């Protein structure tokens, strides 16, 4: 021991009472023999302005994964604040700017922490504060986070470390110390118990969900609307990556009301139909298809009102306006010919492991031209309009033909547009479980600036080496349209190499014409690269299909 240190120690010991010495003894023992806590999952949260906090967080995440921990890495600007109640180990990296301010990206987080009644007794945390000693309020934002978490009852694992502009060394020391204090829980502990499908699986299980988040992923200037919807559930939903969520839309209230006004029907009168019983209002809202009626329904309508009606697909309201019913009895008869509302399926965009107690969807607002002008799809319209805290009912549609490959297998994902949904689930699951297989994503949309779905998540996967290759096709950023199949052709040699080496290949998204075009290009690549005939290439692909190495989720 350095002379200076030993004399300081002696000086200190000299002034201590016996009780104090006993305490020091215990304290030092604790320091020396503290056993690492067993931890399965940690969260690394960063608040960044210049990118320094973020690049540290990315490095730390890689290190923690190497150690065998499951890591949730996320920027505070995208962090769902309610998740704080679920965190057990959170490490926060945050910089300070101007007059002691947090980065803009962390303001909502700070406000959340500042709530009076916040209680986070389950949380253990540590803060890394970045700052600049040239400013008077050095690392103030980090200090604030620490103080607020402590006030909320969270337990500090190690003291806040404050870094100046040359932050690398102290930052690394901070994280090493944290890592040393924990060890990954054994697999048995960590693995989420797989939910065993109920024996009576033919009985459809309905779940109640609450909308946690509903955002349009497309930016100003986009020609599209794509909703990212997070649905929270009380009970654990039995699903796997690759499954779909099924739900029925609720018809627009204003339309239902107009129909009732127009026909003079008693909204509360209970009616029994073959497939449903309920009040007229409920049936019109929840059970019957009243939009874009089928030709056979229109024919039946014509028969009831005894009018000659052209077979143009229109809405019930249009018919009622142009060819009114005589009275409410006739209207009840009309209700009997309407088709029941069909459930719609959406590929799930979340992973049961990584997104606990939540199901995510990626829903494009469906627009199509009809003879009466542009229409929007009823279910995508309904989902897009669902406000946070609204409740919905859904069930899971299993899709055993679209499942993750073995953990060590390479995976090629081709998912333009909302085809990205199941692959977001795949990547999240593989990231969370530390699957070692390589990943290659092909995705596409219209414009880079406004339509790059899940861009920041995908960037993070790339930076943390989860995503080994990414091929992007933005069709409208240049005069010639570029689609994923063009990128596949550009990458033909590499793509075929991956396939030959056993990669699993997945296609998700629009059946027409995307999946057809992609399959054509795939055959072309196989044929050209292995110099075989078209028929042999088809056989090659069939063999891949049998080996479950070629799977599609197209609609």
């Amino acid at each position, binding site marked *: 021991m350095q002379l200076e240190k030993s004399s300081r120690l002696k000086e200190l010991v000299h002034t201590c009472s016996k009780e104090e010495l006993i305490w020091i003894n215990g304290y030092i023992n604790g320091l020396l023999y503290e056993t690492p806590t067993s931890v399965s999952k940690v969260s690394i949260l960063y608040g960044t302005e210049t*990118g320094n906090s973020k*690049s540290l967080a990315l490095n730390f995440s890689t290190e923690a994964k190497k150690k065998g921990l499951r890591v949730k890495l996320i*920027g505070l*600007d*995208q962090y769902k604040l309610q998740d704080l109640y679920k965190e057990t180990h959170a490490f926060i990296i945050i910089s300070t700017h*101007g*007059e002691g*301010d947090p980065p*803009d*990206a962390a303001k909502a987080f700070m406000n959340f922490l500042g709530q009076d009644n916040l209680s986070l007794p389950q949380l253990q945390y540590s803060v890394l504060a970045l700052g600049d000693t*040239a*400013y*008077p*309020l050095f690392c103030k934002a980090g200090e604030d986070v620490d103080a607020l978490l402590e006030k909320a009852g969270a337990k500090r694992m190690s003291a806040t470390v404050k870094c100046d502009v*040359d932050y690398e060394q102290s930052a690394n020391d901070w994280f090493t110390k944290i890592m040393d204090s924990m060890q990954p829980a054994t697999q048995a502990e960590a693995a989420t118990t797989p939910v065993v499908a109920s024996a009576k699986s033919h009985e459809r299980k309905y779940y109640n969900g609450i909308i946690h988040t509903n*955002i*349009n*992923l*497309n*930016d*100003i200037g986009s020609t599209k609307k794509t909703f*990212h919807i997070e649905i929270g559930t009380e009970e654990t939903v039995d699903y796997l990556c690759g499954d779909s969520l099924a739900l029925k839309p609720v018809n627009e209230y204003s339309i239902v009301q107009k129909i009732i006004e127009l026909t003079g029907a008693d909204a509360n009168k209970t009616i029994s139909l073959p497939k449903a019983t309920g009040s007229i209002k409920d049936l019109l809202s929840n059970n019957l298809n009243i939009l874009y009626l089928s030709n056979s329904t229109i024919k039946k309508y014509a028969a009831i009102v005894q009018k000659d009606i052209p077979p143009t697909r229109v809405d019930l309201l249009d018919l009622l306006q142009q060819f009114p019913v005589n009275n409410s009895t006739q209207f009840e008869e009309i209700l009997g010919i309407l088709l029941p509302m069909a459930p719609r399926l959406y590929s799930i965009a979340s992973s049961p492991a990584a997104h606990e107690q939540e199901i995510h969807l990626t829903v494009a607002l469906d627009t199509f031209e009809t003879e009466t002008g542009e229409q929007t799809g009823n279910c995508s319209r309904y989902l897009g309009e669902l406000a946070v805290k609204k409740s919905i009912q859904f069930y899971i549609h299993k899709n055993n033909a679209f499942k993750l490959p073995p953990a060590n297998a390479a995976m090629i994902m081709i998912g333009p547009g909302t085809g990205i949904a199941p692959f977001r689930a795949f990547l999240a699951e593989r990231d969370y479980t530390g699957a070692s297989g390589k990943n290659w994503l092909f995705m596409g949309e219209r414009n*880079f*600036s*406004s339509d*790059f*779905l*899940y*861009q*920041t*998540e*995908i*960037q993070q996967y*790339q930076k943390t080496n989860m995503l080994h290759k*990414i091929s*992007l096709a933005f069709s409208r*950023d240049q005069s010639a349209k570029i689609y994923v199949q063009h990128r596949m052709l550009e990458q033909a040699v590499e793509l075929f190499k991956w396939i030959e080496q056993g990669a699993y290949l997945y296609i998700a998204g629009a059946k027409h014409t995307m999946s057809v075009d992609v399959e054509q290009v795939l055959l072309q690549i196989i044929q050209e690269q292995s110099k075989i005939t078209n028929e042999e290439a088809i056989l090659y692909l069939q063999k891949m299909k049998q080996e479950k190495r070629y799977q599609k989720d197209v609609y």
Partner: protein
Amino acid sequence: MSETKNLSPVERIKTKSDGLRGSLKESLDEPITGALYDDDQTLIKFHGLYQQDDRDRREERSLKKLEWLYSYMVRLRLPGGFLLPKQWEGLHEISNQYSTGVIKVTTRQTVQLHGIIKSHIKPSLQQFDLLKLDAIAACGDVNRNVICSAHPKQSALHETIFAYADKISTLALPKTNAYYEIWLDKEKIGSSETEKDPLYQDRYLPRKFKIAIAIPPNNDSDIFANDIGLIAIIKDNQLKGFNIAAGGGLSSTHGNSNTYARLATMLGFVATEEQLLKAVYEIITIQRDYGNRGDRKLARLKYTIDTMGVDAFKKELAIRCGFELAEAAPYEFTERKDYYGWHQNHEGKWYYTLFIENGRITDTETTALKTACYEVAKTGKANYRFTCNQNLILADILPENKAIIEAILVQYGVITHTNDASAIRKNSMACVAFNTCPLALAEAQRYLPTLIGKIEPILTKYELLSEEITIRMTGCPNGCGRSPLAEIGLIGTAYGYYNLHIGGDRNGERLNKEYKQHLNETQILEALDHLFSNYAKARNPAETFGNFVTRLNLV
């Protein structure tokens, strides 16, 4: 000679950049982000570009899981700020095709375009190249655009003196060919031998470097705000030489008392071109060798001179030059302004100076400034000169063409716009600040016009509206808008708040001082109302506002 330990991270980026190439080519080709790799964000400045993002859109885009909306600002290298009509036409078209559309005249006699996305940088620079324009070293730790008194009517020797701006700019250009390779797809022609850079070596300067030339009695180029300020000494209609001042710089950092605004110190006089170029060159080499490379906030020449002491600095300069500077020649500045409207030079050519508020050339409902400038360019009958106060001179118009130009200016409302602006508005200046400048703490160019609209009635109340009071606003203390040299300076401290400085003189020879801290709009207007009321009552005849508040020791 310089410190080798504790170099700032930027120093490492410069020396390992392989002649400012870095990984810029790879950065440009990276499709997953609109940003560049971290180090390249520093290097691209040396090529006249800044990576920026729309700060107004950060929060919303984060929620949409989109990265920040990155784009680039390109600033041209235009020694003395001169363009031919064909070049203006090209600039106009490039601005429409690739940028926000606003042509921004800077406080350093050049123009910049904002909002160019990554994939459009190369096409923009290639089009500029066809016009024989470049952006080399328009930003970065090198000598920036050399500025010069703008108006040819000032002296029959204007053309001669103006030519020095170009000579000095060429003298201090980096030798690397990186610009041509990266942006213009030229073959790599430079070898380490031909690219040897005796001035910048591989480390460039510790910080940006600014040079200005003034022709007395007008200090329109604000020479004392520059690292090197040159004063043309004219006697009996002959150029006798230049006074050389050095060590000016207006930036400071809130809360860092080691930083300060400083006026350039007069060093002496040189009589010949050879001596002038040698002295300028060696001032730069002293800064290269002695400047602080550890702390970028203390790296400008002003700190180098104050650390060495003025006498030691002069001695070192004499050693490096091989001659001593002569005693500074007498000169007098009596004004610092642009000569708005029509003026004629000694040869009979006509000049029209347009008022451009904060340098933003764009069409508004009342004045089609941008269209007018374009129409003038298409006649081919006027050249374009930028002033150091963000205005534009339509220049070198032959007497027979004056009516043609005048007609265009009348048609698009330019003359009314210039005549109708109040004296304080014409003497105002603001930096860019929000939404693109990453350093901005508060608004500047988007807000100053509104604030002046509220100051004008106060001036009217005290019958001061015709007073040519200078007012300048910067969104942070870095001084791009040169607010420390204004009679009224406003320096942003936080969003919506400014420090109010007063007491600068009208000619740019005395810095203003802080009068009140952290004021919102109401408080600014109250403070000014109070000051103007006193000024109107108690000033001496012809006493400027800045001199008045200084005489009364208000600051």
